[in-house]
């Protein structure tokens, strides 16, 4: 057995086995909290300025040596450089020395604390997290003041790099080709270390508890950056197991990346669209890199949240146009504003609904606040001339809502005609099927739209009457519940009968156990988190429709969900052992958000 197993957050998938090497360790450092005689204020201030200058020079040197593979991280070094020279940090520390007659270290610590307090009050999580950058820079200045020796060169051979935290500037000082993987004590999912490790394609785990106290230089470690585990001084048995797993994972990675641009086509030629669910244009790179054929669900809410001011038509038009142009000829389905429940605009916060999940959300919100809805539709229509754009309405519960929404859409079209503004008059219009009522009248709805997208996350919650974030009932969130399987099949059949396409855009569509069943229903497409695309495409490419139809038939004959789960799991696990062993770990690295 291993002596110790540490846990952290996996941020770049993979496995490595090697000797540990620490580049910086945050030992309990005693910061000299001492007062100084007044005549030494100038000397102490100069010590501070010298330390800042030393760190500034190090950042400048690192900036000049940014290698090609880390080019995009140059901007992070730039912002560290700016923080290092920032009057808020340096001048306020100098002022602390002068006003309080204290050591440079203590003064610097006080300034960092003051900035920290100001940042902790910020609502925006991204900006609040930038405090991490202030700490990184502050720590470097502190090290220069206290005189912590700089990281020595890596010892010979390749090493598993351990650090308190790792900045791009640190990384540039190191010989990257000799680093097998990273593990840091600090950091979260959005930390620079994760971005860095992913661009270098090496395994990494961040936020490891007890890292600095548990590992010594030269310790043999296994880094399992699929599960976020570090084995210190592993047993022979663990070494043998992980050596095999490492090669298997590397082969699997190579294969899925190599094949992700091939069409999602079964062995017997059934092809379906595999698209991505995204909410920011920045994610397009990931969609393309992972072989996504388009965007099956663009969540338009982001532009409306965390904003002090409502976006205007021009902003939305620019946003949608960028998407359309970059994806063309691939499609992008823009879903109109879907707020409510856990996602609220100011207008809704004032409503104080007792049951927001059953309240004014999705299309109901848009029909109530038509000024917002019309503005968004204008932007979508205008963007439609720049690519393959479709519009989709969320939370449709019945025909009346759909007709109202379409009426408004037509009126917006007339408005644009009158103004002489261009749009695609035949823009496809679809709806999300996520309410049991919509399932029951899918045949009627299918006659009035161009496509369906089945939002399984909400459909499961509303059909089974459970909030899956409620720990008391989350066990009832069962994608393979007979009611759910039958509902999805009913919707797909109804769509096909009316000659329209039906796709699935919930988590079910990225679940290796469920995809073959959806295919058995002849689903036309799926839309999933970008990082799930390569693995799912690979499963599709290995299966044939006969097998999928047979599996579906088997599922439909069982009355209990436990029986279905057992059957399906057994069968799929036997069929795709590799996928199930690695794929789940890969997609769990990023949260797969609600569609």
């Amino acid at each position, binding site marked *: 057995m291993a002596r110790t197993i540490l846990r952290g957050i996996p941020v770049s998938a993979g496995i490595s086995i090697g000797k540990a090497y620490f580049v910086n360790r945050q030992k309990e450092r005693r910061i000299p909290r001492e007062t100084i005689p007044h005549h030494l204020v100038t000397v102490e201030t100069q010590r501070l300025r010298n330390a800042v200058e030393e760190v500034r020079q190090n950042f400048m040197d690192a900036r000049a040596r940014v290698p090609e593979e880390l080019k995009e991280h140059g901007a*992070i070094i730039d912002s560290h450089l*700016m923080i290092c020279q*920032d009057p*808020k940090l340096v001048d306020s520390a100098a002022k602390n020395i002068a006003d309080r007659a204290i050591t440079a270290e203590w003064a610097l610590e006080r300034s960092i604390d003051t900035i920290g307090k100001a*940042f902790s009050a910020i609502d925006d999580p*991204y900006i609040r997290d930038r405090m991490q*950058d202030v700490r990184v820079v502050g720590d470097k200045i502190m090290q220069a003041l206290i005189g912590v020796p700089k990281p020595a060169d890596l010892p010979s051979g390749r090493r598993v790099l351990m650090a308190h935290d790792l900045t791009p500037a640190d990384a540039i000082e190191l010989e990257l080709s000799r680093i097998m993987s990273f593990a840091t004590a600090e950091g979260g999912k959005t930390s620079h270390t994760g971005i860095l490790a992913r661009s270098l394609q090496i395994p990494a785990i961040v936020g490891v508890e007890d890292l600095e106290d548990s590992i010594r230089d030269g310790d043999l470690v296994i880094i399992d950056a699929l599960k976020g585990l570090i084995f210190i001084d592993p047993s022979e048995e663990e070494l043998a197991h992980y050596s095999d797993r490492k090669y298997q994972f590397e082969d699997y990675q190579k294969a899925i990346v190599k094949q992700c641009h091939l069409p999602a086509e079964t062995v017997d030629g059934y092809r379906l669209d595999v698209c991505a669910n995204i909410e920011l244009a920045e994610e397009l790179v990931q969609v393309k890199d992972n072989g996504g054929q388009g965007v099956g669900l663009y969540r338009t809410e982001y532009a409306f949240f965390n*904003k002090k001011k409502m976006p205007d038509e021009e902003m939305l038009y620019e946003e949608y146009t960028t998407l359309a142009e970059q994806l063309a000829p691939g499609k992008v389905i823009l879903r109109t504003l879907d707020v409510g429940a856990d996602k609220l605009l100011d207008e809704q916060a004032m409503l104080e609904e007792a049951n927001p999940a059953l309240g004014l959300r999705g299309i109901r919100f848009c029909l109530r606040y038509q000024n917002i809805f019309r503005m968004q539709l204008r932007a979508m229509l205008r963007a439609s001339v720049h690519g393959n754009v479709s519009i989709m309405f969320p939370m449709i519960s019945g025909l009346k809502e759909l007709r109202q929404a379409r009426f408004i859409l037509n009126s917006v079209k007339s408005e644009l005609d009158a103004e002489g503004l261009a749009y695609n008059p035949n823009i496809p219009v679809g709806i999300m099927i996520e309410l049991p009522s919509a399932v029951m009248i899918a045949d009627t709805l299918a006659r009035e739209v161009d496509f369906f997208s089945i939002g399984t996350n909400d459909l499961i919650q509303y059909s089974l009457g459970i909030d899956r974030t409620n720990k008391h009932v989350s066990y009832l969130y069962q994608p393979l519940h007979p009611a759910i399987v039958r509902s999805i099949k009913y919707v797909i059949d109804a769509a096909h009968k009316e000659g329209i396409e039906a796709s699935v855009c919930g988590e079910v569509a990225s679940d290796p156990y469920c995809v073959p069943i959806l295919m058995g229903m002849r689903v036309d497409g799926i839309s999933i988190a970008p990082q799930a695309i390569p693995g799912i495409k690979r499963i599709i490419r290995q299966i044939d429709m006969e097998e999928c139809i047979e599996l579906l038939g088997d599922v439909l004959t069982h009355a209990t969900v436990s029986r279905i789960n057992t059957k399906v799991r057994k069968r799929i696990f036997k069929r795709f052992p590799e996928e199930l062993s690695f794929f789940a770990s890969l997609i769990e690295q990023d949260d797969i958000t609600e569609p």
Partner: protein
Amino acid sequence: MEPTGENNSLEVIVCVKNELGLHARPAGKVAQLAQSFQADIALCLADQRADAKSILDILALAAPQGTEICIKASGTDACEALEQISQLFHDKFEGDT
């Protein structure tokens, strides 16, 4: 640009156009540019006032896309400073997202 009378400062209102708001990279660009001027320059948002030469002060504004910010400058090169900084906002911080 109107002299306000208050310390003879000039001011101009700009809008944060880039998608992620005034985050680290744009804030860094503003601070870097502001530091090249003698003038005292401030970014004002409601009752908050940030020193335009401090990336930390600018970040602490946490200004998202769509925010209107009043840039105030006083000093010898105030006019030029305002022109160049507001241009940076107009150009979405040289193509930042």
